[in-house]
C-alpha cells in the first residue's frame, strides 16, 4: 500500500525468484549462517513469525542436508498467527507467540525436548513513524525472546530481526542478560539503506533464578534508566560484524550481471 520510489527488485529479489525461495529474506539467514555457523549440529529448530516461510525453507534445506546427521531426527517447527503453504519436513503451529500454550505445543512437538535454535524474522507493518515502528519491533523481539526462554536449551542460539534505531543499545543489554555472546550483524542481502539488522545471540545462559513466564509485561521494567546505559562510560560492546565474506555484489548494487548460480546449496 505504501508508495515508494525505491526500486524493490534488486538482485536478491531476482535470485530468490530464480532459486525458488519464498522471499528474498532467505538470503539474510544464509548469510548469517556463513558468518556465525548457526546451523552447526542443530537438529531441533523453531521459526517464529514464519510466514511466508522463506526462513523455514532455509532451515529445512540446511538442517536436513547435514552430511553426518540423521534426517529423521531433524525437527523444525514454524509458528505464526496465520497458516502458510506447507513444506515437507516442517511442522506448523498456528498460534500466538505471547501465549504459553504455544510454547507448550512447541515442546510437545520436540517430544519434551527443547530447541537448539530459535529464529524470528517477524516485523510489524511499518507505519512510517520511526519511533513507533522501533518500539513495536522491540516489543516483538522481546515477545520472541520471552517464548524463546521457554523452549530454548541452554547453549542454544537465538536469531532475530532488530531495528538499529535510537534504543538499540538498550535492547542489546537486555539480550545480554540471557546470552553470553550477542552480536548484531547486517547481512549484505539486507539493504544498507534500511535500519534493519539481525541480532545473533549465542550460548543461551539464563540467570540461575530466572523462571520463564508469560505474565510479565515483556521485560518492561528494564526500560527505566536507558539514558544511563546509552550515555554511560561503559558503552556496550556488541561487535558489529559485516556478515559473510565480500562477494562480488551487494544489495545496493544493480549492475548488469549475468545471473548464474553464485551460491550453491546442496
Amino acid at each position, binding site marked *: 500500500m505504501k508508495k515508494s520510489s525505491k526500486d524493490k527488485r534488486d538482485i536478491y529479489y531476482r535470485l530468490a525468484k530464480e532459486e525458488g525461495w519464498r522471499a528474498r529474506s532467505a538470503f539474510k539467514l544464509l548469510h548469517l549462517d556463513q558468518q556465525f555457523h548457526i546451523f552447526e549440529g542443530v537438529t531441533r529448530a523453531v521459526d517464529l513469525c514464519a510466514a511466508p516461510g522463506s526462513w523455514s525453507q532455509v532451515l529445512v534445506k540446511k538442517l536436513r542436508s547435514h552430511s553426518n546427521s540423521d534426517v529423521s531426527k531433524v525437527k523444525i517447527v514454524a509458528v505464526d498467527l496465520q497458516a502458510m503453504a506447507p513444506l515437507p519436513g516442517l511442522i506448523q503451529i498456528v498460534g500466538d507467540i505471547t501465549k504459553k500454550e504455544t510454547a507448550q505445543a512447541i515442546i510437545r512437538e520436540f517430544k519434551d525436548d527443547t530447541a537448539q535454535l530459535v529464529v524470528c524474522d517477524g516485523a510489524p507493518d511499518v507505519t512510517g513513524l520511526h*519511533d513507533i515502528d522501533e518500539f513495536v519491533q522491540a516489543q516483538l523481539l522481546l515477545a520472541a525472546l520471552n517464548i524463546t526462554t521457554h523452549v530454548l536449551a541452554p547453549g542454544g542460539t537465538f536469531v532475530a530481526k532488530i531495528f538499529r*534505531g535510537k534504543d538499540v543499545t538498550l535492547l542489546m543489554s537486555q539480550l545480554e542478560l540471557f546470552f553470553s555472546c550477542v552480536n548484531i550483524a547486517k547481512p549484505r542481502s539486507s539493504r544498507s539503506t534500511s535500519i534493519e539488522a539481525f541480532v545473533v545471540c549465542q550460548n543461551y545462559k539464563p540467570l540461575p533464578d530466572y523462571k520463564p513466564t508469560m505474565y510479565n509485561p515483556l521485560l518492561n521494567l528494564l526500560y527505566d534508566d536507558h539514558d544511563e546505559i546509552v550515555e554511560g562510560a561503559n558503552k556496550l560492546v556488541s561487535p558489529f560484524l559485516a556478515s559473510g565474506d565480500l562477494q562480488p555484489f551487494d544489495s545496493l548494487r544493480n549492475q548488469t550481471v549475468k545471473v548464474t548460480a553464485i551460491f550453491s546449496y546442496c
Partner: protein
Amino acid sequence: MDFTTFTAAFETDYGIGGCIHIFEAHSAKFITKEEVFEGQRVHNVFADNNQNLAIIGGKMVRIFKLKREDTFILSPCAAWTTEDWIQYLHWLDCGNLAIVTAHNVVSVWNSRTGEKEKDIFCEVKCILYCALLNGSSWGELLVFAGTVFQQILVWAPSLENDTLNSPVLHTLKGHDGVIFSVSYDPEFQLICSTSDDRSVRLWSVDFQLCDGSNRVTQWKEAKITLLHTMYGHAARVWRNIIIDNVIISVGEDSRLCIWSVDGSLQKCWKTHQGASVWSVDCSKEKNLIVTGGADGGISLWPLHTYSTVPHLLTFHGNLFGEDCTTAEGQNQNFPRRIGLTSKGNIITVTDSGCLLYCTVLGSEEGNWRLVHQDKKLASYCLLEMSPCRQSVALASMDGYILVFKEDCSSVEGGGLILDVEEKAVAGRIFALHWLSSDIFLSCGSGGVLEMWKLGFAHQLQKVNEFELPKSKEQWTSAAAVKGNFLVCGDRNGSIHLFKIGSNKTHSMQCPSQSFYKIHGRLGVSSLIWHGDYLYSTGRDGTLRQYLLRESEGRFECLNADKLQMDWPATTNLSSSFGLLVLGFRSVNLVMWDHMERRTLLTIPCGGGHRSWDWTLEGHMFRFIYLKDKMVHLYTCVMDELVKPVLQSGFHSKQISCIQQVPLLRADASSSYRLLITASEDTTVRLSVVSHSNALHTIAVLQSHISSVRAIAVCQLDDGALVFSGGGRAQLKVWKLVIQEAQGLVVPQVKCQELYSHMLRDPTKGHKKPWLSVERTVDPETRYMDLCAAAVQTGTTVLLVAGCSDGFLRIFGFCALCSELRLFGKYSFHERCILKVSLIKTESFRHVALTMATDGKVAFWDLTTCVEELICSKHRNSCHTASADKSDNTPVVRGSFKPFSFVKIHQSGINSFDWIQLPGDKYLLATGGDDRALVLSLIEIVTPNVHEEMRAEVVLQWRDDHAHASQITGLKIGDSVLVSTAVDQRITLWNWNCHPVSQSLAAAVKARYYSAVADIQGLLTWKSGSFITACVHGKGLEVVTIQLDQGS
C-alpha cells in the same frame, strides 16, 4: 479565549520534532514555540478546561499551564516518564490524569507531582496501536483500545478484580487490519474507528438500560452494532474525529475526508504534498479543521461550507429572436460561448447568432436581454473578453470582428453597445487574443497574425502583422505582449517570440526565437505576465516560468513544474492567494495553490472542452460554464472555502542530501544561510536558515523524474552551479543567481535549469528486450554521490559521480555552452559506490576519492581527465556547432585504475570528511555501516608530473563503537569533529594530530539527542564559538552547539 489548543496535535517530522508550536486560529498567526522533549517527537497534546496542557511523546509526559500575559506563555508544571509507550492521555475531573499505554494498561497519575497512583491491566494482553478514554471520573472511565489483532476492546478500569485485571465489556470485530484510531461521540452514541484495511467504520451504541444506573453498567449491557463501513481512502487511515454530525478522517494517502453519519462521503481534499496526514483536530465553534502532515505542514480547512453548489441560470432559447426550432423539434438556440463582464454580468453568444446579456438576479435567476442578432455569428463565433472585462470581441467564420463595450454608467451594468463592426480578415478567424484593453491579436488561416488597435470612429487599425511557423494546426492558443515583444503559444505546443517592429513596411514578421513543442503536442493553454516573469501553462500539465532579456531580445526558460492536473488552463497572481493555477483534472475544474502546493477548490463542471470564464475580485470567485447547453454559475467567497496554511510543508519524504550554497558576500555578518536539499520526493528545495534556526523555503525545483540523492555545488563568478543527481541515472545542472540586498531577510534567487542528462544503457534502446540473448539485471543506475570542482575559473567544471553500478563516472561541464559531457566510467570497487570527493593536491593535481560498500577508500588520479577536459573545451569553442551527438559517447578506458586504496571499514562507508594539513597530508574521517569512526592521516605522494602517485596511511585512530548504529554524517573542522548516526545522536568530538610524535586521537566532548529519525547526513557551519549542525533524514533539525561548554 481566542487561541487554539489543537495545534501540534501529533505533529511529526520536519521542524516540529520535540517542540510545540502555538498558533492563533482566527488570524493563523504563529504565537510561540517551546521545546518539550529532546530526542523525542511530540505525539499528542491534550488540554483540559483550565488551560492545562498535557503533552505526550513516546514514554514521556509534560504538563504545562498556558498563561496569557502580553502574549501566551507556557509555564512548565510537571514532567515524568512512564514505563510503557503512551497511547492516550485523559484529564479527569479531579485534576488527575489517566493514561493508556501500549500494553493495554490504564494508569492514574497526579498531574501536579507526576506520581503514579495505580495501574489497571486489561485481561486481554496485547499491543495497542491506538486508544481512547472517555468519562469524567474514575468510576465512569471507559477504555476503547484498538489492538494489533484487528479488534476494538471496550473495558472499564473501575471493574478491576483481585488480580488487577479488568474484564473486556465488548470486542468489536470487523476490521481487517491493525486499528489506528478510535473515537466516541457521547451525544450520538457513535464509535468510529479507522484501520490498516483502508476503511472507516461507524458503530452505534444502543444502551439497553436507560435508568439511572451506573454508566459502566449501562455500557456493560449495551449493544454495539456496526452501522457503516466507509471506503474512500486509498491507503491506511490514521485518525478520525466525530464532530457535529460528521466524521473527519485523514490517512496515508494525504486525503482529508468528511463523511456524514449515514456513511456517504461529503468532501475530500488532498493535501500535504502526497505525504501522510498524521494528525487532525477540529473546532466546531470556529468552524475549522486543522491537519498536520508528514511534510511538516499545518493547514486549516473549513468544517462546514455553504454556497458551494453551482447554480443553473434558467435559459429559454425560444424567448429570443426568431424561432430556431428545427424540424425535429430541437431547439438550436443554445449558448455557444460565454464570458463574464466587469460588472459580474454574463455575455453569451448562441448557436443561432444572438448575443445575449444577462444580469444575475438571484441564486437561480438571470434577466436575459437580446443585444444583437447577426446571421454572421451563427454556428461559429469566438467570444473573448478584454483584460478589463469592459469590452468583448466577437469573431466570425468569414473574418468579421465585432467589439461591444459594456455600459458602465450604472452599478449593475446597463448593457452592451456596439463599438466596431468590420470585416478585418479574409477567411475564418481561428483565434483572437486581447493583449491589452485596446489591442488584440487575430489569427487567420495560414498562421497570419494581425495585431489590431481599437481606434477612434469605430474603426480597427492594423498595427502589425506576423506569421506563425508552418505546422499542422497553424493557429495560436495564447498570446501576451510586453514592451516591444509579442509572445505567442500555438496549438502545437510551441512558443514563439516576435519583435514588434515599425508597422510601416507591412511585411510579415517571423519569430525571432522559438521554443518548439515546449508544452507537448496538445498546445499551450495560457501565457500571462506576472511582474517580470512570464508564465505559460500547457496541455502537458506543466507550468513554466520565463525571463525576458530585453537587451538581448530573447527569452530564457527558467524552470518547469509538473502540476497535479492534466489541463492547466490559466494562472492568476494576487496578493491574498499568491500564484493560483486554474485547470481541469478529468471532469473537474480545480484551483491549485502553487505556493502551498494544494488544491483549493474542485468543481465538477464536466471538463475543459467547453466555454467557460472566471473572475477573482478580492475574495469573490465567479466561475461560469456551459454544460448540457445551459449556463451554470458558481460563486463563492474564497475566505469561506480557503483557510490559511499555518506552516508550509517541507519535503514530503526522506531528505537524502543537503548542501550549503556559498553566498557572494560570504562574511560572518550575513544573517542567513542558503541551503539546498534533495529528497526522495523528487524535489530539490532552496531554503534560507535564519539566525534563529528557522527554515524558510524560497524555491522548489521539481523536474527530476525520480528521487534525488546527491547534490554538488560549485561557485561561479556570477552565481553558483548546482548539480543534482539520483534515481534513473538522471543528472541536472542548475544555475542560481543570488541577489542579496541590504536589509532583505530573504535573498532573491533566480534559478535556471541549464541541462538535463540521463545515462542510457545501449540495451535500453532495444525495442524488444526479450529478443536479446543476454539476460540482464535491471540496468537502472542511481547516482549515489556527486562532487564538483572548477578546473578553470568560471568556465569549466569537473564533476565526479559515484554510481550504484559500481562505476565512477567523470563529467565535464562547460559553463559557456551549458553542456555536460560524460568523459568516462571506471570501475574498481565492483560494488555500489556510496561517496565521492575531489582533492586538489599541493602540486595542483586533482585526486578523486571513492568509498563503496566494501569499506575501501580508493584514490584516483584525474590529471589526464582534467587536461582532456580543458582541451576539449578549446576544441568545442573552435567549432561551436560541431558539438554533435557523437561527442557525447563516453571514452571508456578500462585500464584506468585508482593509484591506491585502503580498506578502512568492514562494510559500507556512509560518511566522510577531510581537511588538508601541510605537506600534502589529509586527515580523512570516515564513518561506516559497522558503527566505527576512523580518523586516517593520509599522505599523497606525487613523485613526478607523469609518474604514479601514491597515497599512504601515516597514522590511524579508530573507535569501533562510536555510535549504536551506522554513522551517516561526519564533519571535521579545526580540532573538532561532529558525527551523527541513525541512532539519532549528534556527537561532538575533539581531535588532535601530531604527525611528528605519531599521535592521532579523538575524544567525545558532547552529545545531543536529535528527534530526526533515520538520519542521512549532516551539514555544519561555524560562527564564532558556535557550531550549527543541521541533520537531515526523516526531517531536518538545526542544532547550535557552543564549543566552549559543549552544550
